[in-house]
């Protein structure tokens, strides 16, 4: 072994080169996975040079291999292709350059690619990067929209044209970068950082047209997905066709089917909004007007109710009552008066019938004693007693005189007068009246 080097006895370059070669050789044969960054074949030179890049770490390493290894049938080695290489570290002593000497290159097949993406997806999902809880709502009408897309790409045009048509006031913060190949992911990540830092940008759209799985691979790049998860500004992805799903779609706040759809999601359509607002105003007005009309109809119905509309009916009712009552009162009164009159007449008739006046009129007379008692039997009166005789014309004071003899008939003799003159009175001679005279 050579003695240790020192300033006094430095090693010659060849020693150092040999030692380095030795060290490097110790790594031995490895399988390494990466993306073909550059690929150069000089004419039919035996050796093919390429650089293998690690997309996640943005590092690369030179690789050399025999042309047959590179041109193995079935392996379409192209730039951007993902490959797995079996190689040994090789230190080219002459120029002191390091490279990997590949003895076998395998293309990472589509299945392999998808499997790889799936692995990354599960890993990130487990970390919760795709949780819906993390999804942020998009701003309603953002003033500035950040757009990360390929320069002059169809996707860019779709987003810009559609958005402007929908919401003329919108402005854009553009970030153009590669949307395919090894440094696409890095370009997008760079754009994300720049636009996210810009406070004016309220939403970021990552737009890319359709492409093969390989083309879209950068959009399933772990680094890019983490970058999106880390941005504060909401991110909308519009990558590939509607049917393609890349990992960015899972982490994005909103996944748009196409760049045009992204424009629809990001800005409202002004005409539509105006119609919406007008519709709401009309409905509000209709509701109020309807309620007003309903109340007016109610008031109308109440005011036409008879009790209000024709109060006189109330009075009329009462007036009729009064009229009826008066009628009844009058009738009752009349009846009563009539009855009273009739009674009066009856009474008068009876009085007339019972009253002595008529009898006296017919010539009878009534004899009363001093005390007014009626004399019905001569025996009741004493001789010489003063009596009163009432005749139709008036009264006659008389005295009883039984002295004149009348043929042996004791007191109480009766004298009959000729038929036809009812009165049997003696004038001044005290003879009692006869019992009955022809009336």
């Amino acid at each position, binding site marked *: 072994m050579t003695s240790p080097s020192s300033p006094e006895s430095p090693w010659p370059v060849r020693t150092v080169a040999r030692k380095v070669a030795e060290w490097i050789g110790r790594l031995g044969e490895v399988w390494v996975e990466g993306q073909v960054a550059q690929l150069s074949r000089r004419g039919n030179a035996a050796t093919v040079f390429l650089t293998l890049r690690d997309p996640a770490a943005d590092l690369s390493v030179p690789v050399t291999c025999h042309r047959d290894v590179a041109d193995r049938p079935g392996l379409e080695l192209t730039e951007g292709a993902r490959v797995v290489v079996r190689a040994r570290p090789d230190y080219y002593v002459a120029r002191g350059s390091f490279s990997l000497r590949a003895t076998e290159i395998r293309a990472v097949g589509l299945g392999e690619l998808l499997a790889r993406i799936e692995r990354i997806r599960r890993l990130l999902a487990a970390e919760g990067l795709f949780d819906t809880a993390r999804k942020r709502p998009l701003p309603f009408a953002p003033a500035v929209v950040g757009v990360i897309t390929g320069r002059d790409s169809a996707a860019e045009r779709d987003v810009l044209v559609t958005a402007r048509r929908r919401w003329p006031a919108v402005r854009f913060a553009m970030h153009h970068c590669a949307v395919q190949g090894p440094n696409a992911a890095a370009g997008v990540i760079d754009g994300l950082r720049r636009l996210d830092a810009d406070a004016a940008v309220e939403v970021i759209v990552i737009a890319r047209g359709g492409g093969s799985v390989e083309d879209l691979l950068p959009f399933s790049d772990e680094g890019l997905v983490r970058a999106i998860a880390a941005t504060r500004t909401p991110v909308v992805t519009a990558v590939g066709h509607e049917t393609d799903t890349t990992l960015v779609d899972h982490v994005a706040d909103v996944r748009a089917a196409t760049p045009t759809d992204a424009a629809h999601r990001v800005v409202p359509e002004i005409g539509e909004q105006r119609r919406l607002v007008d519709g709401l105003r009309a409905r509000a*007005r209709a509701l*109020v007007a309807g309620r*007003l009309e309903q*109340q*007016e109809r109610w*008031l109308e119905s*109440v005011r036409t109710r008879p*009790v*209000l509309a024709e*109060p006189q009916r109330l009075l009329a009712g009462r007036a009729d009552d009064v009229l009826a009552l008066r009628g009844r009162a009058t009738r009752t009164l009349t009846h009563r008066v009539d009855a009273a009159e009739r009674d009066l007449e009856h009474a008068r008739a009876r009085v007339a019938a019972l009253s002595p006046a008529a009898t006296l009129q017919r010539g009878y007379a009534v004899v009363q004693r001093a005390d007014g008692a009626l004399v019905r039997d001569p025996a009741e009166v004493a001789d010489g007693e003063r009596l009163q005789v009432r005749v139709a014309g008036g009264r006659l004071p008389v005295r009883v005189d039984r002295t004149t003899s009348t043929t042996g008939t004791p007191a109480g003799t009766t004298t009959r007068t000729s038929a036809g003159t009812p009165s049997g009175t003696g004038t001044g001679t005290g003879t009692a009246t006869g019992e009955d005279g022809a009336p």
Partner: protein
Amino acid sequence: MTDTPGPETAAEPAQTYEQAREELADVVRRLEAGGLTLEESLTLWERGEALAELCQHWLDRARERLAAARPTD
């Protein structure tokens, strides 16, 4: 006996529309039920008229405000 309404000055009437409407409905109910003295019927009728005017006032005001708010469409 319902209290006869205070003179409705030009300022905002004391009762809200709903209160006036409620009382008006009640007045009509009582008038229709009958069994009131003449004086009560008259007073009640007057109250009903006043309330109806009040409701009309509110509805006219509402109609004006709605028309005023009408955009020049």
